[in-house]
C-alpha cells in the first residue's frame, strides 16, 4: 500500500499550524446578539413566579425568553440517530428545576455583559422540593424527579426514578456459581468526570439571504442538529443548514445538542445573528459529563481458572435528565462481557435520575467504567489465587472464530447482531506490553521503602461504530488535473478523520493524498453521516469512502477504455493502459470527458453501514510510585499496546492513544467533579478540576499490534476510544502491587491510600 499505513501530513495541517480562522467562532457577524442563560440555583423545585420586566427593559436587551415562550415539547439533547434511544424528558426551558444549572431563562442582548446583567435582573421564585443526590437512594424514593411523562418508550419507569433498565440472561448463572470452585464478589465505582475540550461549546446562527436558518456550530453530529432543531422549533428541515467548521475537541461532549436550539429560536424570533458560547464555569455544570457508575461483579471460576459465570449489576447515575442513559450502561455491559469467555451471564443495569448535572456521551461511553471494575476484579482474583494476572486473562480471552454471545443480546437500545470475532491481537498486546514495562522484573518488588514502586496491567476491548445503525455516505468527483473532491458528512472533531478518509480515497484511486480535497460536514453540501461517535469514522465513513472510490476507479477505467478504443486495459500509476501499450492519463481522461468526448462528470457516491463492529483491543501497563507517608501516587510510566487492525495513519493513531491516556489518568487521580450538600458544584474551573499538563505526564510508550480486520477498510478497526479504558485500572492495580492497598472507588486520593495503609482512621 502506498498511502494507507503511512505518515501523511494532515489535509488541514497548514491552516491549523498557522492558526488560520477555521473554528466556529473565528468570524465576525454584523448586528450580532449574545445569549446568556439564567440557571437554577436550586437542585429541585418549581418556578412559582417569574418576572422578566426589568430584564427586558434594560437598554441593549433584545429578547428574554422563559418556558412560557415555548410550547411544551419533550425531546432529548442526546444527539443520536432517529428514533433516539434516550428518554425524551427535556424541554427547551423548564418550569421545573431538576439540578443546579437547569435552564430558567435565556436573554439575548447587544453584548454578553448586558445579557448577563439582564439575566441577573430576572426575578424568580421557587418552591423548593426535596432532592436526591445519591444514586443508591433514587429507586422508589418518595421524591419523583420526572413524574409527568408517562408514554415514552425509552423511559423505563419515571415514577420510580428509573430512566432505563437493561437485563440479560445467558445460561444458568446460579447453577454455575454453585458448581464453581472459586466465587468472588466485589463492588467498584467511578465518579463524575468531564470531557474538558479546550474549545467550549460555541454556536452561531443567522438567516441567510434566502431567510434560511444557518447554524454554524461546534458539533459532532451536524445532521442530528438539523433534525432536532427542526423538530423542537417546529421549523421546516429544508430551511435549516448546519455547518460544522473545525472543532476544538469533542470527546462526546459535542454530540449533545446544547445551545443550537436556543440560538436558533432567538434568530428566528429577532431575525438577527446570534452567538452563544459557554463559559468554562458553565461547561462544568451545564454541559455533560461521564455517567458515574457503581458496578457490582460476581465471577465464578473452575479449578483450571476458567471463568464459569459473570453476574454484572450496574447502577448508573444519569443526573437530572437521561441523554444516553440506556446506551451508556448497555455499552458498559456489552464491552466488559465481550473480552472474556463466560458461558453463563446475568446482567441487571439501572440508570437512575438524581438531582445532579446531566451525564452524556464521553469517549469510551460506559466502557471505562466497566473495565475499571472488571480489570480491577481480575487483579484481585489473581492476587487471591496467587496466579499471574496476565496468565489469568490469557486463559479466558475469546479467540478468533468465537461468537461473542452478548453482542447478539445487547444492541444500541434494541437487540444486537450476531458477532463473530474475526481477529484479535489481545494476547500479543499483553505479551508485548509485558516486555515493554519489564513485567517479570518489576512486579512484586520489595515492600519496605517509604516510596514503593509497583506495576499493574489492564486489558480492554471496544467497538468500531454501532452495528446496524451507523451509516455514512460520501460523494467523490474528479477534476481535470486528476484531483478529487471528497465530500463527506463525517465529522472530524480534531482527530484527523478528514486525513484518514483522504488516505483511504487516495489509496483506492491510486493518487497522492495531496490530490484529495476534503470538504466535510455541511448539511447542504455533503451527504448524510450519523456523525462522529462510537469510534465510527474510520470504520464506517472510511468504508463509504472506499466504496465510492472503487466505483469511481471503475468509471475512470471504462472511460479510459472508451477513449483508447479498446476493450482490455488496466489502471497503472494514474494511467489507463491498453493491452497494446497505448495509454491515457487520469488527467486527460477527465479533461476529455468534461469537454470533448463522451461528455460526463466522472463522479460516484456510496453509502456504508455495517452489521459488524469488530472490537479493537488494548493492553495498558502502568508503573507507579506510592509515597507511603503522604499517600501521594506518581505515575512513572504507561505502556499502551493496541490492536486497531491495519493502522491507516500511524502518528495520528498514536496521537489518539497518547491523548486518551491522560484523560483516563485524570479520572483515576486528579479529576473529580464534586458537589456540596445542596447539589451545588464545587469544581467549576481548571484550577480545581486538574487535567494533566505537560509536566504531569508520565513516560508514555505506545505501540500497535498489526492485525487485518476483513470487515474494515484496508483491514482497519477503530482507534479513538479503546485506549481510554485501560490506564485507570492499570494504575489502581499498580498501586496494589506497590503497597497492597486496593482502591475500588475512584478517584484515588492520598487519604484513601493512607487509610488503606492503616495510617488514617
Amino acid at each position, binding site marked *: 500500500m502506498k498511502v494507507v499505513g503511512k505518515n501523511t501530513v*494532515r489535509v488541514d495541517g497548514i491552516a491549523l*499550524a498557522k492558526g488560520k480562522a477555521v473554528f466556529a467562532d473565528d468570524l465576525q457577524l454584523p448586528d450580532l446578539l449574545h445569549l446568556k442563560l439564567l440557571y437554577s440555583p436550586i437542585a429541585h423545585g418549581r418556578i412559582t413566579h417569574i418576572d422578566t420586566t426589568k430584564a427586558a427593559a434594560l437598554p441593549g436587551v433584545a429578547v428574554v425568553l422563559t418556558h412560557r415562550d415555548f410550547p411544551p415539547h419533550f425531546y432529548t439533547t442526546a444527539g443520536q440517530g432517529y428514533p433516539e434511544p434516550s428518554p425524551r424528558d427535556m424541554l427547551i426551558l423548564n418550569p421545573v428545576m431538576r439540578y443546579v444549572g437547569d435552564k430558567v431563562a435565556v436573554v439575548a442582548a447587544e453584548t454578553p455583559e448586558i445579557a448577563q446583567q439582564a439575566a441577573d435582573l430576572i426575578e424568580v421564585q421557587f418552591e423548593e422540593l426535596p432532592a436526591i443526590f445519591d444514586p443508591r437512594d433514587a429507586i422508589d424514593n418518595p421524591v419523583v424527579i420526572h413524574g409527568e411523562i408517562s408514554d415514552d418508550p425509552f423511559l423505563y419507569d419515571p415514577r420510580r426514578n428509573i430512566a432505563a433498565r437493561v437485563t440479560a440472561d445467558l445460561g444458568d448463572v446460579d447453577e454455575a456459581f454453585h458448581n464453581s470452585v472459586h466465587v468472588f464478589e466485589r463492588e467498584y465505582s467511578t465518579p463524575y468526570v468531564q470531557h474538558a475540550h*479546550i474549545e467550549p461549546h460555541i454556536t452561531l446562527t443567522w438567516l441567510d439571504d434566502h431567510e434560511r436558518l444557518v447554524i454554524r456550530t461546534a458539533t459532532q453530529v451536524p445532521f442530528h442538529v438539523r433534525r432536532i432543531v427542526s423538530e423542537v422549533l417546529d421549523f421546516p428541515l429544508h430551511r435549516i443548514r448546519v455547518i460544522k467548521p473545525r472543532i476544538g*475537541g469533542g470527546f462526546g461532549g459535542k454530540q449533545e445538542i446544547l445551545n443550537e436550539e436556543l440560538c436558533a429560536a432567538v434568530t428566528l424570533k429577532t431575525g438577527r445573528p446570534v452567538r452563544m458560547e459557554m463559559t468554562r464555569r458553565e461547561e462544568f455544570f451545564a454541559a455533560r459529563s461521564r455517567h458515574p457508575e457503581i458496578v457490582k461483579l460476581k465471577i465464578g471460576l473452575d479449578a483450571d481458572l476458567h471463568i464459569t459465570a459473570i453476574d454484572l449489576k450496574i447502577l448508573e447515575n444519569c443526573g437530572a435528565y437521561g441523554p444516553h442513559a440506556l446506551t451508556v450502561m448497555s455499552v458498559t455491559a456489552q464491552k466488559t462481557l465481550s473480552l472474556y469467555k463466560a458461558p453463563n451471564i446475568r446482567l441487571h443495569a439501572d440508570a437512575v435520575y438524581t438531582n445532579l448535572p446531566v451525564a452524556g456521551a464521553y469517549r469510551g461511553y460506559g466502557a471505562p467504567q466497566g473495565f475499571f471494575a472488571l480489570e480491577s476484579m481480575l487483579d484481585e482474583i489473581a492476587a487471591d489465587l496467587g496466579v499471574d494476572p496476565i496468565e489469568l486473562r490469557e486463559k479466558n480471552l475469546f479467540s478468533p472464530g468465537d461468537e461473542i454471545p452478548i453482542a447478539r443480546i445487547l444492541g444500541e437500545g434494541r437487540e444486537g447482531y450476531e458477532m463473530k470475532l474475526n481477529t484479535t491481537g489481545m494476547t500479543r498486546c499483553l505479551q508485548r506490553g509485558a516486555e515493554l514495562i519489564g513485567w517479570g522484573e518489576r512486579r512484586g518488588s520489595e515492600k519496605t521503602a517509604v516510596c514503593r514502586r509497583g506495576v499493574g496491567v489492564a486489558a480492554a476491548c471496544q467497538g468500531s461504530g454501532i452495528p446496524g445503525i451507523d451509516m455514512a455516505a460520501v460523494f467523490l468527483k474528479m477534476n481535470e488535473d486528476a484531483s478529487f473532491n471528497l465530500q463527506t458528512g463525517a465529522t472530524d472533531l480534531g482527530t484527523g478523520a478528514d486525513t484518514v478518509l483522504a488516505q483511504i480515497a487516495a489509496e483506492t484511486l491510486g493518487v497522492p493524498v495531496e490530490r484529495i480535497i476534503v470538504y466535510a460536514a455541511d448539511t447542504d453540501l455533503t451527504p448524510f453521516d450519523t456523525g462522529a461517535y462510537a469510534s465510527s469514522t474510520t470504520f464506517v465513513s472510511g468504508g463509504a469512502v472506499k466504496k465510492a472510490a472503487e466505483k469511481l476507479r471503475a468509471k475512470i477505467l471504462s472511460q479510459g477504455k472508451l477513449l483508447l478504443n479498446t476493450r482490455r486495459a488496466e489502471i497503472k500509476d494514474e494511467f489507463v493502459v491498453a493491452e497494446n501499450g497505448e495509454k491515457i492519463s487520469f488527467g486527460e481522461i477527465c479533461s476529455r470527458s468534461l469537454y470533448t468526448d463522451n461528455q460526463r462528470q466522472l463522479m460516484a457516491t456510496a453509502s456504508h453501514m455495517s452489521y459488524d463492529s469488530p472490537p479493537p483491543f488494548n493492553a495498558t501497563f502502568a508503573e507507579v510510585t506510592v509515597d507511603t507517608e503522604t499517600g501521594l501516587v506518581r505515575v512513572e510510566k504507561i505502556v499502551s499496546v493496541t490492536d486497531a487492525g491495519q493502522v491507516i495513519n500511524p502518528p495520528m493513531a498514536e*496521537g489518539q492513544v497518547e491523548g486518551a491516556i491522560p484523560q483516563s489518568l485524570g479520572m483515576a487521580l486528579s479529576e473529580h467533579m464534586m458537589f456540596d450538600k445542596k447539589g451545588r458544584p464545587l469544581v467549576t474551573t481548571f484550577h480545581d478540576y486538574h487535567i494533566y499538563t505537560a509536566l504531569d505526564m508520565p513516560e508514555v510508550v505506545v505501540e500497535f499490534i498489526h492485525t487485518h480486520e476483513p470487515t474494515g477498510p484496508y483491514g482497519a478497526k477503530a482507534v479513538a476510544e479503546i485506549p481510554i479504558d485501560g490506564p485507570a485500572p492499570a494504575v489502581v492495580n499498580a498501586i496494589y502491587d506497590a503497597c497492597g492497598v486496593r482502591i475500588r472507588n475512584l478517584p484515588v486520593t492520598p487519604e484513601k491510600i493512607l487509610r488503606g495503609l492503616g495510617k488514617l482512621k
Partner: protein
Amino acid sequence: MKVHFILNGKRHSAKTPPGETLLEHLRKSGFYSVKHGCDEGSCGACTVLIDGRAQNACLILVQTLAGKTVETLEHFNLKQGVTPLQEAFLKTGAIQCGYCTPAMLLALEAVKRTHPKPDIETIREALSGVLCRCTGYVKPVAAAMHENVTEGEEQTGD
C-alpha cells in the same frame, strides 16, 4: 481611551473601552490565532508574547500595554508555507484539533529566545502553561525536540 503599543512589529493604536482584555481586543481585530478556553487565566489557549514573554491575553487589560510589544502567531507565520517549528508540529503529528496549537507554538518561540536549544525539561515547563486535551503533550514535546535537532543540522549543512 487610546493606547499605543507594538503589535506584531507594527505600531498599533488601540481604541479600547476601559476593562477590555487583550484577548477581546485581538480577536475583535481579526487575530483569530489567539484562542480562548476559560477567560480566567487557567488554560493558556490565549497565550501571546508580551515583551517576549508568554502571557495569557485574557488576564491583560489593553490599557496596561502602552509602550509594550505584543506578538501573536500571525507575527511568526510565513506568507507561504510554514516555519521550521510548525513543520515539526506537522511532521510529528503534534496537532490534533489544533485549538491549543497557536499557544503551544508561541510558548515554544518564547522559550527559544532564552534557551536556543531547550532541553526536554525546559520544553515541558514551557508547555505546561498551555492545556491540551487531545495530544497528551507527547508529540508537541517531540516536535519541539525534533526542531532542535533539524535546526542544528541545517546550520551545519549551510
